[in-house]
């Protein structure tokens, strides 16, 4: 804290030495206020989006009237609607994505979205009846909003810290990533696929074939 305080004092002295300091200071305050308001609005939207999605997901997962495979199918639809599939597809296949042809990329994306739905369905399908608690939100790098939550396992034995990385304008938010106890789903998938891609000299079609063979 101390160095920051010192910097502030120095800044004040410097601005005081010019005649225009009231203008500068008020401009600065206005700037902070506008930026701050925008950031708060973004974090509120993101937080509301996480809560809305959680309510939707929990409603499906705890719907005892439907058999498990139908609940699973509905849950997958919600995931595909709420996640930014094109951006995630690119991320998980880097650095080989940029070397692939548009045809290869689109073939990969078609299969990958099914894999992505499976990853999150497996992860959250057991959480029926659990509610998620929002602990806080903050703005991360490249304008994404990070919504920090805690989810307890159904038996209540363990709770996970789950960060939801949200992107997009208000009303059209999408999830970019879900970070569970510090483990980013995207990074894990990228390193998983990276292992496959390295062993096939970075051939994206080989990765697509491996995903197909796994049944996605």
């Amino acid at each position, binding site marked *: 804290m101390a160095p920051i305080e010192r910097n502030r004092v120095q800044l004040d002295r410097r601005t005081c030495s010019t005649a225009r300091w009231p203008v500068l200071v008020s401009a600065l305050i206005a700037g902070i206020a506008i930026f701050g308001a925008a950031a708060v609005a973004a974090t509120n939207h993101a937080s509301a989006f996480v809560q809305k999605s959680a309510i939707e997901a929990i409603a499906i997962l705890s719907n005892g009237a439907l058999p498990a495979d139908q609940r699973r199918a509905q849950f997958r639809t919600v995931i595909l609607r709420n996640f930014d599939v094109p951006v995630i597809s690119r991320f998980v296949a880097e650095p080989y994505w940029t070397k692939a042809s548009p045809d290869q990329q689109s073939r990969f994306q078609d299969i990958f979205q099914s894999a992505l739905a499976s990853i999150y369905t*497996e992860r959250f399908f057991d959480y029926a009846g659990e509610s998620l608690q929002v602990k806080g939100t903050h703005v991360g790098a490249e304008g994404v909003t990070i919504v920090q939550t805690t989810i307890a396992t159904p038996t209540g034995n363990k709770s996970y810290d789950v960060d939801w990385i949200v992107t997009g304008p208000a009303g059209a938010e999408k999830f970019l990533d879900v970070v569970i106890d510090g483990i980013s789903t995207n990074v894990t998938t990228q390193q998983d696929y990276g292992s496959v891609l390295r062993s096939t000299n970075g051939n994206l079609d080989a990765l697509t074939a491996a995903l197909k063979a796994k049944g996605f």
Partner: protein
Amino acid sequence: MPGGRVNMHWFLKLRRCLSASSAILAAIGLASCASLPNDPAARAEVERLNDPIEPINREVYAANKEMRQVLLPLQMIASAGSPVAPLAAAVHNVLVNLREPLTFANDLAQGKECAAGASLRRFMVNSTLGVGGIFDVAKDYGVAAHDNDIGQTLGVWGIPAGPYLMLPVLGPSDVRGAAGTAAEYVVDPVSLGLSRAGWTAAVWPIAGLDALDRSLEAAPDLDKLDRTSLDGYAALRSAYRQNQTEALNDDKCPDVLRIGGEGIPATRSN
């Protein structure tokens, strides 16, 4: 008898792993079993993964996976809804309670005062009100258990993680973590206390039960990771490394013990 064959196969693999793990240090000295790829990006990635004995680690990973299959019936018995689930939960709670003194020592060694307060409170409350740790009373007050170990303390002190290791039964680790685990068998306050009280014979059964308990706890997550990944080994390695980074940075402070008691602020800007 197919079940017997699976058991035998797993046992042989474990024996192979145990001899493999004794060769681990020598292998690390030799630095690499696999040749590096030619592509610069791939080569940089492989170097960053820091897994010089990957072929041996993969063998251990496969053996651990088979061990999970063998433990599956136990997992079913311990899971919620089964008649003996309360007993399994009690055993788990007692084992977690016995970990608290070591967790407390590591919290302190890392300067995580709030976490140390949490583990101390947990041990005191659960050992008394929780009848020797059978009931996790502290959790109901919002002070849930957190993990801490000597490997993490070494990490907080600036010692690098070193090459990735897959330990038999215990699962993913690194040289720092494995050294910490080995040290814990020597300096665990509960083991020391039991030895001093003349109950040395209880130390290894408790350590064995603890390893089993941790395996059972991690099994569902490991199975999920396996089902949704193409190379489960690579996915687990990535997850372990990320989780370690997070564990070192995490203050492990339960919200109810934060100053002000209101949890973390509603908004925070970077």
